[in-house]
């Protein structure tokens, strides 16, 4: 089969066919996953609901005094523009984000790749070993930061520092910071270039980082607030938790990701046997960034997921591209066959619904009167507050009720809560959800407010001060007794 060769007149179409296959599979993957009915579980929902609501966060969340500005200002402005231009609702925007951002992150390196099929190998490996491709399907703007980072690392391997690259890097960093916000984390790749001994590149990147940060901050119209808010958020997100257990999952430390270490070992072996003319790992900023983030992830897992893994993917693509260049001529049938096999493998691996990873949300039941009329009177009234210690309840409820006139005590970041509410939230998680820990919230609840707690139909919360309704599967809603709103008999 592999010995088959194409007639001469067809061979020149092989590179084009390979490009088409790779492009098609990268397009088909998110479309297939969306066709399952997939919805991401976290921030994408609130980004899109925010864009649809058109309201500032102060009208959506109960916030503390440290909050000054939306740290995803550019992203919400862009989604708001799309919403107004197209009339798409939150669901339409989420689909756009999931599909669009997956494609952007996976197509980022194409203009610099001689063998685009090498990307499929990296995608396949990362899907089997890590959850990075799944993270790229979350529809969140960090995918833009990942795309920009991979481009910078890859371009720096393939070209020399110069004016064009400075402009390119500045533009990439500007967009990443405008949409994603965390400007200070770009210090990591700068440090990686320094460790690799690439001083000229480090200088160029540092300049691009400073210029890009300034440019993005200016574009928000509130440069000082935008930059300081990002730092304040970071300090609050990590500084207020007594243990990492009560932090957001993606901020919790990782366990070392041994399989990623095995992949690095495999790359070293590949080098040993192939002896490619590539820069040694010790001179590779991608390698240093990966190592640095692997170490930092023992404190905060996101260093590895958002900076370390993308750097490892750049290393993989680089090595595999060398392998393919050495073993397959550009216009051979072997190359086309290999690409088809890789495309099938990548498609099947990424779209496989293992462990219901793409269909878990189909069984979600949302707190929405439109979908569950029996909830009438059991959602917060105008001006009320929805108390919950589970961020998932905020994401899903806000997604389904973007124009509701209540606020949420807990939104996308606990560090933004007023201090006494954060103390209650922290106590709830510290005590693994014990009902008694909710008492400070129960005591200050008004008739318009509601308390929502996760639990099965047999597990009525042990808070007798409130009357309870098993609203939808898995959620109990509590309100003050003698509520004037009409009452539905609990099941």
């Amino acid at each position, binding site marked *: 089969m592999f010995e088959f060769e194409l007639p001469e007149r067809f061979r020149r179409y092989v590179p084009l066919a390979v490009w088409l296959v790779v492009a098609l599979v990268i397009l088909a993957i998110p479309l297939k996953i969306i066709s399952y009915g997939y919805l991401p579980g976290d921030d994408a929902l609130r980004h899109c609901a925010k864009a649809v609501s058109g309201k500032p966060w102060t009208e959506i969340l109960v916030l503390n005094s440290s909050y000054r500005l939306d740290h995803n200002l550019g992203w919400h402005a862009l989604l708001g523009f799309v919403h107004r231009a197209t009339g798409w609702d939150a669901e339409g925007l989420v689909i756009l984000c999931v599909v669009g951002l997956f494609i952007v992150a996976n197509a980022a390196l194409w203009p610099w790749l001689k063998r685009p099929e090498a990307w499929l190998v990296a995608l396949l490996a990362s899907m089997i070993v890590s959850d990075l491709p799944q993270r790229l399907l979350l529809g969140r703007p960090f995918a833009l930061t990942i795309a920009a980072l991979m481009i910078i690392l890859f371009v720096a391997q393939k070209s020399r520092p110069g004016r064009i690259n400075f402009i390119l890097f500045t533009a990439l960093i500007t967009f990443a910071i405008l949409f994603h916000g965390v400007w200070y984390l770009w210090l990591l790749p700068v440090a990686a270039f320094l460790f690799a001994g690439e001083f000229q590149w480090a200088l160029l990147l540092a300049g691009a980082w400073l210029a890009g940060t300034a440019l993005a901050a200016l574009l928000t119209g509130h440069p000082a607030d935008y930059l300081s808010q990002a730092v304040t958020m970071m300090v609050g997100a990590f500084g207020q938790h007594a243990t990492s257990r009560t932090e957001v999952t993606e901020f919790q430390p990782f366990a070392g990701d041994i399989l990623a270490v095995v992949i690095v070992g495999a790359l070293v072996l590949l080098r040993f046997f192939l002896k490619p003319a590539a820069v040694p790992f010790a001179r590779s900023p991608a390698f240093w960034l990966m190592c640095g983030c692997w170490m930092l992830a023992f404190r905060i897992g996101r260093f590895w997921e958002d900076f370390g893994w993308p750097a490892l993917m750049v290393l993989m693509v680089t090595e595999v591209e060398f392998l393919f260049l050495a073993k397959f001529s550009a216009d051979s049938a072997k190359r086309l066959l290999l690409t088809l096999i890789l495309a099938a493998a990548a498609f099947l691996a990424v779209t*496989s619904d*293992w462990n219901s990873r793409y269909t878990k949300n189909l069984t979600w039941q949302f707190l929405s009167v439109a979908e569950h009329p029996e909830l009438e009177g059991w959602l917060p009234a105008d001006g009320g507050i929805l108390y919950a210690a589970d961020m998932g309840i905020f994401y899903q409820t806000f997604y389904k009720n973007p124009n509701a006139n209540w606020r949420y005590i807990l939104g996308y970041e606990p560090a933004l809560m007023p201090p006494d509410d954060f103390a209650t939230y922290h106590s709830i998680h510290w005590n693994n959800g014990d009902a008694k820990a909710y008492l400070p919230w129960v005591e200050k609840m008004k008739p318009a407010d509601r308390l929502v707690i996760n639990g099965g139909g*047999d*597990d009525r919360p042990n808070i007798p001060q409130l009357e309870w309704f098993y609203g939808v599967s898995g959620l109990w809603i509590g309100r003050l007794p003698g509520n004037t709103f009409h009452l539905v008999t609990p099941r």
Partner: protein
Amino acid sequence: MTGDHGNFISAARESVRRHAPLLVWALVALTVVAIPLKIIGYGYLPGDDALRHAAKAVSGKPWDEILVLGPAYREQYFFWHLFLRQIFLWSHCDPGQLVGFTVAGLFILFGFSPLPWVKRPEAWLITLTLVTVAGGLLPRLMLGRPFLLTISGLVTILCAWQFREPSPPRWRTLAMVTAISAFCTLVHGVWYLWALPVAAFFLAGQFRWGILLATGWLAGSFLGACLTGHPFASLFYAAEIGRRSLGLHLVQHTMATEFQPFAGDIFALLLVAGLLVLRCVEKRDPLSWKSSPVFWLAGLGWLLGFKAIRFWTDWGWPALMVLTVFELQLLLAARLAANSLKRLALAGGLAVMTYLAATSNNDGKWTENLSWPVLSQDNPDLKGWLPDPDGIFYTADMTIFYQTFFRNPQARWRYIVGFEPALMPDADFAVYQNVHWNFGDPQAYRPWVEKMRPADRLIFRGGSGAVPNLPQLEWKAAPGFWIGRTPRTNAPSAQ
């Protein structure tokens, strides 16, 4: 004296050396036999179909007296059940002994299937250890189910190719392939999946072997189907049940576990990488695998494992095992003479290693069943709480069916879900799917509760904690279960 002693030692050593190949064979065979016997010695019972096959043979009843079946049903394993029934009638064993027989017999058959084709059988011991440690496949090989016949047939055919490579196939090979295909179709049924190895031979460019395998497969499938007495219907039904088992489910988490996708089995990939490195170190061309149907079948099985894990466990892994054993055989042959004492010592060490790895009861995998809670008619505490004659045993948990039918093969009730949800009547399948869709929420059981008669029972796993939130029924907490029935007068609502 010293001279005699020296001569004696030298003669003994020479004798051992002469018999080393035979001793290695004996060690390997002994290990393959000892593993299942030791595991059965723990009191091990597999968790799924082997139980119902044995109970069916003991009961002597047709499936429509055991299960509530939809119109799609036909018996698929009649030959296997006939075989087990004859053993039961001949030996008067109990269902547990019948299960032990199938577990040990099928594992030994599988364990011996590559041995006629390998020159260094100790390589098979290493492979078995790798499969145990890296693949976690051993519990599947101990399930005592007829798919092990298919796997054994597959391993035999792949080994025959490896053994004869690069020679063209012979007529004798065609006869063997036809016989294997016929037997597997007769006993296991899924004839259509043999298209996978056929495709692998063509992908590898082994066209003569591919044509031979395709011919043997088609002839054997038809022959096997003829032996069922319903040649066309049985072939059609096997394909239809496959279609229903996968096609009726809206999402994969409601399917039987073995039809759900896998996550990529990174340890198998590491094994392949290790074999590649071995090839490079031994200065053999790693790309020569491209003309190996064994490699292609492993690859195909791996790819399709992202759709349903059985492609990987039943077709991909066996192919990878054959690939591994022949790679290791080359290594061993290059390093050790066939009659060397070192080889014998190595085989002894490998036999101990394989035996200990395979029979290790880590995580209680071989003894988990000893603490299974049991619903048995013989338990006086359950009097009145198991279905009455002609009643229906409602549950959405297939393991409850397997274990309860195994303990009560002669009971006169029927089960709403048996060994395959796709065989249920459509309305009941909808309830079953809804229960799993909602991750077991008691409210999803309502349609069953509404049609329950006094003779019927609804069973949940549990038995401690809160009573199931279905107040329409009265409940009894049996160890490990909640049993619900329609309310009786003078009966407690929950115990």
